[in-house]
Protein backbone atom coordinates (compact mmCIF):
# COMPACT_ATOMS: atom_id res chain seq x y z
CA UNK A 1 0.00 0.00 0.00
CA UNK A 2 2.72 2.40 1.05
CA UNK A 3 4.74 1.53 -2.04
CA UNK A 4 1.79 2.18 -4.30
CA UNK A 5 1.38 5.64 -2.80
CA UNK A 6 5.08 6.32 -3.44
CA UNK A 7 4.53 5.45 -7.06
CA UNK A 8 2.07 8.33 -7.28
CA UNK A 9 4.78 10.90 -6.47
CA UNK A 10 5.97 11.38 -10.07
CA UNK A 11 2.37 11.91 -11.16
CA UNK A 12 1.82 14.54 -8.46
CA UNK A 13 5.09 16.27 -9.38
CA UNK A 14 4.01 16.24 -13.01
CA UNK A 15 0.68 17.89 -12.24
CA UNK A 16 2.28 20.55 -10.03
CA UNK A 17 4.77 21.38 -12.79
CA UNK A 18 2.04 21.33 -15.43
CA UNK A 19 0.05 23.73 -13.25
CA UNK A 20 2.98 26.15 -13.12
CA UNK A 21 3.45 25.91 -16.87
CA UNK A 22 -0.23 26.56 -17.59
CA UNK A 23 -0.18 29.67 -15.39
CA UNK A 24 3.14 30.72 -16.93
CA UNK A 25 1.74 30.47 -20.45
CA UNK A 26 -0.95 32.98 -19.54
CA UNK A 27 1.50 35.54 -18.16
CA UNK A 28 2.82 38.34 -20.30
CA UNK A 29 6.61 38.59 -19.94
CA UNK A 30 6.44 42.23 -21.01
CA UNK A 31 4.31 43.07 -18.00
CA UNK A 32 6.99 43.98 -15.51
CA UNK A 33 5.69 45.47 -12.29
CA UNK A 34 6.65 49.14 -12.16
CA UNK A 35 8.52 50.28 -9.08
CA UNK A 36 6.97 53.72 -9.65
CA UNK A 37 3.50 52.76 -8.43
CA UNK A 38 2.84 54.72 -5.24
CA UNK A 39 5.75 57.06 -5.95
CA UNK A 40 5.61 60.72 -7.00
CA UNK A 41 5.60 61.32 -10.74
CA UNK A 42 9.17 62.00 -11.96
CA UNK A 43 9.97 65.68 -12.49
CA UNK A 44 10.17 66.76 -16.10
CA UNK A 45 9.98 69.83 -18.23
CA UNK A 46 9.18 69.09 -21.84
CA UNK A 47 8.14 71.28 -24.75
CA UNK A 48 4.49 71.36 -25.76
CA UNK A 49 4.20 69.53 -29.08
CA UNK A 50 1.83 72.15 -30.47
CA UNK A 51 3.65 75.14 -28.99
CA UNK A 52 7.34 74.20 -28.61
CA UNK A 53 8.22 77.44 -26.80
CA UNK A 54 5.96 76.44 -23.93
CA UNK A 55 7.32 74.06 -21.28
CA UNK A 56 5.00 71.56 -19.62
CA UNK A 57 5.78 70.22 -16.13
CA UNK A 58 3.93 67.82 -13.80
CA UNK A 59 3.08 70.80 -11.56
CA UNK A 60 0.67 71.95 -14.27
CA UNK A 61 -1.60 69.02 -13.38
CA UNK A 62 -1.42 69.12 -9.57
CA UNK A 63 -4.91 68.88 -8.11
CA UNK A 64 -6.31 66.81 -10.95
CA UNK A 65 -6.34 63.17 -11.91
CA UNK A 66 -4.41 62.72 -15.15
CA UNK A 67 -3.06 60.12 -17.50
CA UNK A 68 0.33 60.17 -19.15
CA UNK A 69 0.43 58.13 -22.32
CA UNK A 70 3.81 57.39 -23.88
CA UNK A 71 3.39 56.85 -27.61
CA UNK A 72 5.14 57.27 -30.94
CA UNK A 73 4.13 57.60 -34.56
CA UNK A 74 6.22 54.53 -35.41
CA UNK A 75 4.38 52.44 -32.82
CA UNK A 76 1.82 50.02 -34.25
CA UNK A 77 0.04 49.18 -30.99
CA UNK A 78 -0.43 52.91 -30.35
CA UNK A 79 -2.74 52.92 -33.34
CA UNK A 80 -4.55 49.90 -31.85
CA UNK A 81 -5.24 51.71 -28.61
CA UNK A 82 -6.12 55.00 -30.28
CA UNK A 83 -9.93 54.41 -30.46
CA UNK A 84 -10.05 53.55 -26.75
CA UNK A 85 -8.06 56.65 -25.82
CA UNK A 86 -10.31 58.75 -28.03
CA UNK A 87 -13.38 57.33 -26.31
CA UNK A 88 -11.90 58.05 -22.89
CA UNK A 89 -11.11 61.61 -23.95
CA UNK A 90 -14.69 62.10 -25.12
CA UNK A 91 -16.57 60.45 -22.28
CA UNK A 92 -14.49 61.49 -19.29
CA UNK A 93 -13.13 64.86 -18.26
CA UNK A 94 -9.77 63.39 -17.24
CA UNK A 95 -6.69 65.11 -18.67
CA UNK A 96 -4.76 62.85 -21.01
CA UNK A 97 -1.19 63.93 -21.57
CA UNK A 98 0.34 62.41 -24.66
CA UNK A 99 4.10 62.06 -24.44
CA UNK A 100 5.65 61.55 -27.84
CA UNK A 101 8.49 59.15 -27.05
CA UNK A 102 11.69 58.92 -29.11
CA UNK A 103 10.11 60.44 -32.16
CA UNK A 104 10.38 63.57 -34.25
CA UNK A 105 7.81 66.21 -33.21
CA UNK A 106 6.72 66.72 -36.83
CA UNK A 107 6.01 62.97 -37.21
CA UNK A 108 3.94 63.06 -34.03
CA UNK A 109 1.95 66.11 -35.14
CA UNK A 110 1.31 64.57 -38.52
CA UNK A 111 0.10 61.32 -36.93
CA UNK A 112 -2.30 63.22 -34.66
CA UNK A 113 -3.63 65.23 -37.62
CA UNK A 114 -4.28 62.04 -39.54
CA UNK A 115 -5.79 59.86 -36.81
CA UNK A 116 -7.29 62.45 -34.47
CA UNK A 117 -5.87 63.98 -31.32
CA UNK A 118 -7.18 62.47 -28.06
CA UNK A 119 -4.75 64.39 -25.89
CA UNK A 120 -5.47 67.35 -23.62
CA UNK A 121 -1.82 68.31 -23.87
CA UNK A 122 0.91 66.80 -26.02
CA UNK A 123 4.56 66.88 -25.03
CA UNK A 124 7.64 65.78 -26.92
CA UNK A 125 10.32 63.59 -25.36
CA UNK A 126 12.39 63.40 -28.50
CA UNK A 127 15.47 61.72 -26.99
CA UNK A 128 13.54 59.45 -24.61
CA UNK A 129 15.28 60.79 -21.49
CA UNK A 130 12.03 61.47 -19.61
CA UNK A 131 10.89 58.04 -20.77
CA UNK A 132 13.82 56.57 -18.83
CA UNK A 133 12.71 58.42 -15.69
CA UNK A 134 9.27 56.87 -16.13
CA UNK A 135 10.81 53.44 -16.72
CA UNK A 136 9.23 53.29 -20.16
CA UNK A 137 10.25 50.06 -21.86
CA UNK A 138 8.17 50.25 -25.01
CA UNK A 139 5.26 52.27 -26.27
CA UNK A 140 2.43 52.41 -25.53
CA UNK A 141 2.57 52.73 -21.79
CA UNK A 142 0.11 54.68 -19.71
CA UNK A 143 0.43 56.03 -16.19
CA UNK A 144 -2.51 57.09 -14.03
CA UNK A 145 -1.56 59.91 -11.66
CA UNK A 146 -3.64 61.21 -8.75
CA UNK A 147 -4.30 64.75 -7.53
CA UNK A 148 -1.19 64.75 -5.32
CA UNK A 149 0.98 63.69 -8.24
CA UNK A 150 1.39 60.07 -7.11
CA UNK A 151 1.48 57.37 -9.80
CA UNK A 152 -1.36 54.95 -9.08
CA UNK A 153 -1.42 52.57 -12.02
CA UNK A 154 0.62 51.64 -15.03
CA UNK A 155 -0.73 50.04 -18.16
CA UNK A 156 1.96 48.28 -20.17
CA UNK A 157 0.90 47.81 -23.75
CA UNK A 158 -2.18 49.13 -25.49
CA UNK A 159 -5.29 50.20 -23.58
CA UNK A 160 -8.33 48.33 -24.81
CA UNK A 161 -12.01 48.54 -23.92
CA UNK A 162 -11.65 45.89 -21.24
CA UNK A 163 -8.78 47.66 -19.50
CA UNK A 164 -10.65 50.93 -19.84
CA UNK A 165 -13.89 49.63 -18.35
CA UNK A 166 -12.47 47.34 -15.69
CA UNK A 167 -9.42 49.26 -14.50
CA UNK A 168 -8.87 52.77 -15.72
CA UNK A 169 -12.36 54.30 -15.59
CA UNK A 170 -13.18 52.89 -12.11
CA UNK A 171 -9.79 54.04 -10.80
CA UNK A 172 -10.27 57.52 -12.24
CA UNK A 173 -13.66 57.78 -10.52
CA UNK A 174 -12.20 56.61 -7.24
CA UNK A 175 -9.18 58.93 -7.40
CA UNK A 176 -11.36 61.91 -8.28
CA UNK A 177 -13.30 61.51 -5.05
CA UNK A 178 -10.19 61.60 -2.89
Amino acid sequence: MKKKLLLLIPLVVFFVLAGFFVVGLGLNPKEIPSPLIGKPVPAFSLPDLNAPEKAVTPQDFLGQVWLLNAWASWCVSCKTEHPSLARLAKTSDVSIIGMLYRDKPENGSEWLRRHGDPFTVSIADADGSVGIDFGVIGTPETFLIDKQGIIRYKQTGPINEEVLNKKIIPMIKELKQL
Partner: protein
Amino acid sequence: MKKFLLACAISVMGCWGGMAVADEAMPTENDPVAQKRAVELALKLRCLVCQNQSIAESDAELAVDLRQQVREQIAAGRSDKEIITFMTDRYGDFVLYEPPMKPATLLLWIGPLLLLAAGVVAMVFLLRGRSQAATESAPLTEAEQARATALLEGRES
Protein backbone atom coordinates in the same frame (compact mmCIF):
# COMPACT_ATOMS: atom_id res chain seq x y z
CA MET B 1 33.70 31.94 -19.97
CA LYS B 2 36.55 34.45 -19.84
CA LYS B 3 36.91 34.26 -23.58
CA PHE B 4 33.19 34.82 -23.97
CA LEU B 5 33.27 37.89 -21.71
CA LEU B 6 36.23 39.23 -23.56
CA ALA B 7 34.42 38.73 -26.84
CA CYS B 8 31.41 40.54 -25.42
CA ALA B 9 33.52 43.40 -24.18
CA ILE B 10 35.29 43.72 -27.50
CA SER B 11 32.06 43.64 -29.46
CA VAL B 12 30.54 46.20 -27.12
CA MET B 13 33.53 48.47 -27.44
CA GLY B 14 33.50 48.00 -31.16
CA CYS B 15 29.86 48.89 -31.19
CA TRP B 16 30.46 52.01 -29.11
CA GLY B 17 33.32 53.01 -31.28
CA GLY B 18 30.98 52.83 -34.24
CA MET B 19 28.44 54.93 -32.46
CA ALA B 20 30.96 57.66 -31.77
CA VAL B 21 30.83 58.32 -35.48
CA ALA B 22 27.09 58.73 -35.08
CA ASP B 23 27.86 61.76 -32.93
CA GLU B 24 27.08 60.21 -29.56
CA ALA B 25 28.77 61.59 -26.45
CA MET B 26 31.63 59.37 -25.35
CA PRO B 27 32.42 60.35 -21.78
CA THR B 28 34.43 57.18 -21.11
CA GLU B 29 36.20 57.07 -24.46
CA ASN B 30 39.69 57.94 -23.27
CA ASP B 31 39.47 56.36 -19.87
CA PRO B 32 40.10 52.60 -19.90
CA VAL B 33 39.09 52.20 -16.25
CA ALA B 34 35.77 53.95 -16.74
CA GLN B 35 35.27 52.06 -19.96
CA LYS B 36 35.81 48.75 -18.18
CA ARG B 37 33.36 49.75 -15.46
CA ALA B 38 30.79 50.75 -18.07
CA VAL B 39 31.09 47.38 -19.80
CA GLU B 40 30.88 45.47 -16.53
CA LEU B 41 27.79 47.39 -15.44
CA ALA B 42 26.17 47.02 -18.84
CA LEU B 43 26.67 43.24 -18.66
CA LYS B 44 24.83 43.19 -15.32
CA LEU B 45 21.80 45.08 -16.60
CA ARG B 46 19.05 43.39 -18.54
CA CYS B 47 17.75 44.86 -21.75
CA LEU B 48 14.05 45.16 -20.93
CA VAL B 49 12.96 45.07 -24.55
CA CYS B 50 14.66 41.84 -25.55
CA GLN B 51 14.81 40.46 -21.97
CA ASN B 52 17.31 37.72 -22.70
CA GLN B 53 20.20 40.02 -23.46
CA SER B 54 22.11 42.43 -21.31
CA ILE B 55 22.16 46.06 -22.36
CA ALA B 56 25.77 45.48 -23.37
CA GLU B 57 24.72 42.91 -25.96
CA SER B 58 21.49 44.42 -27.20
CA ASP B 59 20.97 46.80 -30.08
CA ALA B 60 17.53 47.89 -28.93
CA GLU B 61 17.13 51.66 -28.70
CA LEU B 62 16.41 51.46 -25.00
CA ALA B 63 19.63 49.49 -24.45
CA VAL B 64 21.56 52.15 -26.36
CA ASP B 65 19.97 54.84 -24.17
CA LEU B 66 20.73 52.95 -20.97
CA ARG B 67 24.36 52.32 -21.98
CA GLN B 68 24.60 56.03 -22.56
CA GLN B 69 23.12 56.66 -19.10
CA VAL B 70 25.68 54.32 -17.53
CA ARG B 71 28.57 56.11 -19.22
CA GLU B 72 27.26 59.57 -18.39
CA GLN B 73 26.78 58.66 -14.77
CA ILE B 74 30.25 57.12 -14.52
CA ALA B 75 31.64 60.33 -16.02
CA ALA B 76 29.63 62.27 -13.43
CA GLY B 77 31.42 60.32 -10.69
CA ARG B 78 28.54 58.13 -9.54
CA SER B 79 29.39 54.84 -7.88
CA ASP B 80 28.32 51.46 -9.34
CA LYS B 81 25.80 51.13 -6.53
CA GLU B 82 24.26 54.51 -7.30
CA ILE B 83 23.94 53.61 -10.97
CA ILE B 84 22.31 50.26 -10.14
CA THR B 85 19.88 52.07 -7.82
CA PHE B 86 19.10 54.54 -10.60
CA MET B 87 18.12 51.60 -12.81
CA THR B 88 16.12 49.64 -10.22
CA ASP B 89 14.24 52.82 -9.17
CA ARG B 90 12.92 53.05 -12.72
CA TYR B 91 12.71 49.50 -14.01
CA GLY B 92 12.54 47.41 -10.84
CA ASP B 93 14.69 44.45 -9.87
CA PHE B 94 13.90 42.88 -13.22
CA VAL B 95 16.60 45.07 -14.76
CA LEU B 96 19.22 43.14 -12.79
CA TYR B 97 20.46 39.83 -14.09
CA GLU B 98 21.28 38.78 -10.56
CA PRO B 99 18.22 39.36 -8.37
CA PRO B 100 18.87 40.80 -4.89
CA MET B 101 18.26 38.58 -1.87
CA LYS B 102 15.00 39.67 -0.22
CA PRO B 103 11.79 38.03 1.05
CA ALA B 104 10.16 37.98 -2.39
CA THR B 105 13.18 36.30 -3.99
CA LEU B 106 14.10 34.00 -1.11
CA LEU B 107 12.58 30.93 -2.75
CA LEU B 108 14.51 31.70 -5.90
CA TRP B 109 17.78 31.71 -4.00
CA ILE B 110 17.26 28.79 -1.64
CA GLY B 111 14.90 26.77 -3.86
CA PRO B 112 17.69 24.73 -5.49
CA LEU B 113 19.19 24.00 -2.06
CA LEU B 114 15.78 22.86 -0.81
CA LEU B 115 15.41 20.57 -3.82
CA LEU B 116 18.88 19.15 -3.21
CA ALA B 117 18.07 18.54 0.45
CA ALA B 118 14.82 16.83 -0.51
CA GLY B 119 16.74 14.64 -2.95
CA VAL B 120 19.30 13.68 -0.31
CA VAL B 121 16.55 12.82 2.20
CA ALA B 122 14.72 10.74 -0.40
CA MET B 123 17.93 8.92 -1.32
CA VAL B 124 18.77 8.14 2.32
CA PHE B 125 15.30 6.68 2.89
CA LEU B 126 15.48 4.67 -0.30
CA LEU B 127 18.91 3.20 0.46
CA ARG B 128 17.93 2.38 4.04
CA GLY B 129 14.83 0.59 2.84
CA ARG B 130 16.93 -1.41 0.40
CA SER B 131 19.56 -2.54 2.89
CA GLN B 132 16.82 -3.43 5.33
CA ALA B 133 15.06 -5.47 2.67
CA ALA B 134 18.34 -7.24 1.93
CA THR B 135 19.05 -8.22 5.54
CA GLU B 136 15.47 -9.14 6.24
CA SER B 137 15.17 -11.46 3.26
CA ALA B 138 13.80 -14.86 4.17
CA PRO B 139 16.44 -17.45 5.31
CA LEU B 140 16.97 -20.47 3.10
CA THR B 141 15.05 -23.63 3.69
CA GLU B 142 17.00 -26.74 4.62
CA ALA B 143 16.86 -28.18 1.11
CA GLU B 144 18.05 -24.86 -0.36
CA GLN B 145 20.86 -24.68 2.18
CA ALA B 146 22.01 -28.15 1.25
CA ARG B 147 21.94 -27.32 -2.46
CA ALA B 148 23.84 -24.08 -1.89
CA THR B 149 26.55 -25.92 -0.01
CA ALA B 150 26.75 -28.52 -2.75
CA LEU B 151 27.09 -25.79 -5.36
CA LEU B 152 29.77 -24.00 -3.39
CA GLU B 153 31.75 -27.14 -2.92
CA GLY B 154 31.57 -27.95 -6.61
CA ARG B 155 29.70 -31.19 -6.17
CA GLU B 156 26.92 -30.04 -8.42
CA SER B 157 26.85 -27.90 -11.49
